[in-house]
């Protein structure tokens, strides 16, 4: 045990000596920019693409796992579970012929949602939904919750379950800025 401690101390000394040597090298023409030390490995804890996906569609037991599943692997891991959840929220979706306002049935809709990335247009309007464009981005003012409620509960015409398709909070509590940084000042 004691020997190990001495060995560790020796290694630590050696490492610090080598590190000093490295920074000496930097003085003689390295391209490394000066700045704080950010070395090390950073490991994922949370992620999101579209609003509310983990919150609405993932069961509590899976929520941490969903945050640590890379988006390209999410469909295989979660689409079936999302479909079960959607059909529990709106039982009409158990009928494969029943669609939402986008024309997606339960399997198709959850097939889109299970890969949790936000598609953003580089050529035109960016909006979650503005009456014309669908899922081309997300602006600060987009009423994303009501869009999602409509797609979950509203059925093919958006008219099913009328009490559940809009939370009737249509905008933010402060006006947004038209210029950078766009978000309103804090309360």
């Amino acid at each position, binding site marked *: 045990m004691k020997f190990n401690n001495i060995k560790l101390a020796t290694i630590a000394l050696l490492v610090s000596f080598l590190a000093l040597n490295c920074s000496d090298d930097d003085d003689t023409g390295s391209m490394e920019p000066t700045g704080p030390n950010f070395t090390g490995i950073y490991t994922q*804890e949370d992620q999101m693409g579209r609003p509310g996906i983990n919150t609405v569609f993932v069961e509590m037991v899976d929520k941490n796992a969903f945050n640590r599943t890379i988006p390209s692997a999410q469909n295989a891991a979660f689409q079936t579970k999302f479909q079960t959840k959607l059909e529990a929220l709106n039982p009409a979706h158990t009928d494969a012929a029943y669609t939402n306002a986008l024309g997606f049935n339960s399997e198709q809709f959850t097939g889109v949602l299970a890969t949790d990335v936000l598609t953003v247009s580089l050529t035109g309007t960016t909006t979650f939904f503005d009456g014309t464009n669908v899922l081309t981005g997300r602006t600060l003012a987009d009423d994303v919750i009501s869009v999602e409620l409509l797609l979950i509960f509203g059925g093919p015409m958006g008219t099913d379950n009328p009490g559940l398709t809009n939370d009737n909070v249509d905008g933010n509590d402060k006006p947004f800025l038209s210029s950078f940084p766009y978000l309103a000042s804090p309360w």
Partner: protein
Amino acid sequence: MKKLKILIGVTVIAIAGFFAIAADHIDAPAVMGGTSDIADLYAFQGENTNNIVLVATIQGLLSPGSTANAAFDENVLVEFNIDNDGDIIEDLVIQAIPRDGVMYFFGPFAPSQTGLNSSIFSSDGFNTVNITPYSTNAIIESNNEMRFFAGPRDDPFFFDFAQYSAIIDGTATSFNLPGSDTFEGTNVLSIVVELPKSMVGLGDSVNVWVESKRKQ
């Protein structure tokens, strides 16, 4: 008064325990209420229509009284991931991490390693912006056609979460008219980056997601 505050606190935790709060606020047990808890992601065309704006908000549900003490965690990297060829694998990342009151930005650059583990890229240099303290005007930095902001802002998210919870809980059958914004009067830590669209992709669209990653 103190008792009331505690009571409210307990209630909030109890509610959060049963119903994770949208959009991504308090979404999962491991990150709930912690310094890596992502609240929201926004991506939209900028005031200059040649630009795209990326916004990540973290550590949501800050009351005005607690906002001055809220801080970005120096061990938490916030990473915007950009897939510009449709395979849902990040081709570019923009990394943001704080140190001593300054937010450091790296990228966009092609990461040497994709997925759950990241290292901070530095050989191409970085941009910085001083983190805006609470109750002061927004500090903005511009460089290479990019703009940067980091600091507390009003949480842009709005939702009658309380009524949604009641519906899911079975104690209500519909939303109210008008609804009540559960996020009214709350703040959130925000990171805002604006950059030319040409720096993220040359096609018609990109796929974007945001990750929080903790130093091991």
